[in-house]
């Protein structure tokens, strides 16, 4: 049976040219899905001069929706104004699955809401952790609960993130999958990396580790935005103590942010100018060049959903010292990392241990790259995401997708599109919120009926598809299974 391919719309406020983790996640995932024979478009809002319809490599089409910008500046959620244009795009691209990204993206929530009203399958990916206590979090969580009440499936980047999302949005844990981020390992090679001929490096000549002498300099790299939640205060506190205990170490700090001034003050007061180098902001493509200058990567973050940067560091052949918060403990195997509690004493002790281990040559950092390459690849992420798509569209049966539920829940997890069933799901959101959400849904549905009359489906031109790729494993089977039959 040929593998089914889908027309997918990735919707998020965050996309290139703005740099960031979510942006590159969407891009990498989309291009790998295209490689697997799917059709993917991206819907985002316009950035300055980046508006209209654009194509990226591989025929990845990006819609920079322009008219949202004036509202974006005022950060006003345009609940219904996005619907006509979203419907138009979905119809002309023959979208089957709407995939929203990032819980702070207003566009993503609206797309999921309208997508369900139009009878499309929806998937949501959460990239970040949130608290439960402050006012902003409570609002975001309520909004999240609203849109996720009716979403077909959710994806989180780590198990910690999943736990967080399940609690915030009161979801059924079985309806949340964990698919981690990945790195493009080719962009994060160690300094003297030689591609072993058989690709695995297992059968290559066993080089002895280059042992560092007691007076050789060990360089510790820190690359992060210098914000409170990234643990810059912790870093400011530990650097003098580490340098006191281990004089033959150096620090390289890259990144900018409001806490940079604290670091500079610390350097001034302790006279550490020749021990600590501050590089300022570094572009993502230059991160590797900074990383390979060091031996140890220090990650003092206070909260982190996944922490792609530590995977990148390990891929560059750096030993990682990090705080045991959020999703970080799941990311790397224990022989690549030393964990510390997010406090000063423990971080100093952990870094000390790491420096001693590096000097004794017990850590084989030169093997890290190949190991990371095997663990994290975007093709794998795309494959797992595709399974989620199969599950929500009913390509694989419910029993197979969700497994047997021992919790005693007997209802179906396939979300049907009947308005009354959708309303039931929203009604459970809260005493007042439930009624408000139901009202929103009814208005949305009426608006949908109005749009069907105002802009009939037949009056919307269908886009020609970019020539689809033949998935590699199907090439030898037949040449007729090119994507879906264009109906």
């Amino acid at each position, binding site marked *: 049976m040929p593998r089914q391919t889908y027309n997918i719309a990735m919707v998020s406020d965050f996309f290139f040219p703005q740099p960031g983790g979510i942006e590159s996640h969407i891009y990498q995932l989309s291009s790998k899905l295209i490689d697997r024979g799917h059709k993917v478009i991206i819907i985002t809002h316009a950035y300055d001069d980046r*508006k*209209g*319809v654009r194509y990226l490599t591989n025929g990845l089409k990006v*819609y920079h*929706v*322009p*008219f949202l910008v004036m509202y974006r500046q005022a950060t006003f959620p345009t609940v219904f104004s996005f619907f*006509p*244009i979203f419907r*138009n*795009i979905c119809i*002309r691209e023959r979208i089957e699955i709407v995939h929203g990204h990032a819980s702070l993206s207003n566009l993503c929530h609206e797309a999921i809401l309208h997508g369900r009203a139009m009878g499309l399958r929806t998937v949501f990916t959460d990239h970040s952790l949130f608290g439960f206590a402050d006012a902003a979090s409570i609002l975001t969580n309520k909004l999240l609960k609203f849109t996720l009440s009716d979403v077909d499936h959710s994806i989180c980047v780590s198990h910690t993130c999943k736990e967080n999302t399940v609690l915030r949005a009161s979801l059924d844990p079985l309806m949340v999958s964990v698919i981690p981020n990945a790195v493009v390992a080719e962009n994060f090679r160690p300094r003297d990396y030689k591609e072993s001929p058989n690709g695995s490096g297992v059968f290559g000549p066993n080089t002895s580790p280059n042992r560092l002498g007691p007076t050789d300099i060990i360089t510790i790299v820190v690359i992060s935005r210098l914000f409170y939640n990234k643990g810059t205060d912790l870093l400011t506190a530990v650097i003098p103590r580490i340098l006191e205990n281990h004089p033959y170490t150096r620090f390289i700090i890259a990144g900018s942010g409001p806490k940079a001034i604290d670091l500079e003050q610390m350097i001034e007061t302790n006279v550490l100018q020749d021990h600590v180098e501050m590089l300022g902001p570094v572009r993502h493509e230059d991160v590797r060049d900074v990383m390979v200058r060091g031996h140890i990567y220090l990650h003092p973050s206070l909260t982190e959903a996944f922490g792609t940067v530590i995977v990148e560091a390990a891929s560059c052949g750096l030993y990682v010292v990090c705080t045991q918060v959020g999703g970080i403990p799941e990311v790397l195997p224990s022989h690549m990392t030393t964990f510390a509690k997010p406090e000063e004493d423990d971080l100093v002790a952990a870094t000390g241990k790491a420096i001693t281990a590096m000097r004794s040559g017990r850590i084989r950092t030169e093997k890290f790259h190949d190991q990371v390459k095997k663990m994290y690849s975007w093709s794998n992420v795309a494959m797992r995401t595709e399974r989620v798509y199969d599950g929500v569209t009913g390509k694989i049966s419910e029993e197979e997708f969700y497994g047997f539920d021992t919790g005693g829940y007997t209802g179906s997890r396939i979300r049907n599109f009947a308005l009354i069933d959708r309303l039931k799901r929203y009604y459970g959101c809260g005493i007042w919120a439930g009624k408000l959400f139901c009202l929103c849904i009814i208005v949305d549905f009426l608006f949908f009926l109005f749009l069907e009359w105002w*802009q009939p489906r037949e009056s*919307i*031109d*269908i*886009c*020609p*598809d*970019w*020539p689809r790729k033949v998935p590699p494993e199907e090439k030898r089977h037949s040449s007729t299974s090119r994507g879906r039959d*264009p109906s």
Partner: protein
Amino acid sequence: MLTTLPHLRIRRPSPTTAEFTVTTLPPPTLALRILRIILIVFRLLLFLAICTVLSSRWLQSPFAAPLDTYPLWPRTWLSTDTLWYMAGCLHRSRLGVALGSCAARIPLPLLVPGAATLCYGIALRVHSSESLLVLRGLGVQTSESPRTYLASAATRFIPTEKIQDIFVNEAFRGFEVRYYLVVVVEGEEDVVVVFPGLLPRRHIVEKVWREARECLYEKAPRWGIDEKA
């Protein structure tokens, strides 16, 4: 009924010339002709009524010459007297009196703009048509029909050596994404959109694009959109 969806008409007066017209004019049938005549008559009558209302309002003002000074019978038929005579007849008739009393009731700030809007509405064309004329070796000429009967068609000629490319693009327009044909002109910042008002459907735009390139460059386009999709 008087208009249709934009459709394409191609005229080829010579092998090196092609005119692509996108128009909302439906194919002429007897019923349609009669309907158009009725529409024209209706428009004329409406115009006459508006003129009557305005002039009777003028008569009610202290500056106007009274109705009694209007000639009761023209001395010769081929003079302005005839016009005044007919205006006088119209105002004295029952319909003229009714319209006059009507004009007296409407306040002036409402009457004048209202009449102007109605006159503009009468002058509006029912159909619109936009065309692209391709002349091999010379260039292309775009033209669009004016909105009213009073203006003349807006045309623009682009010589071949100034044309950098002709292509189909898509863009956001209002609440939708539309396909459109553009001509990139050398030395100009903005592109020239062909059929800017009607923005016909994709199949029309693609057909015009293909044939215009063929006609202009004597060969089929080097690249194309996947026809099968």
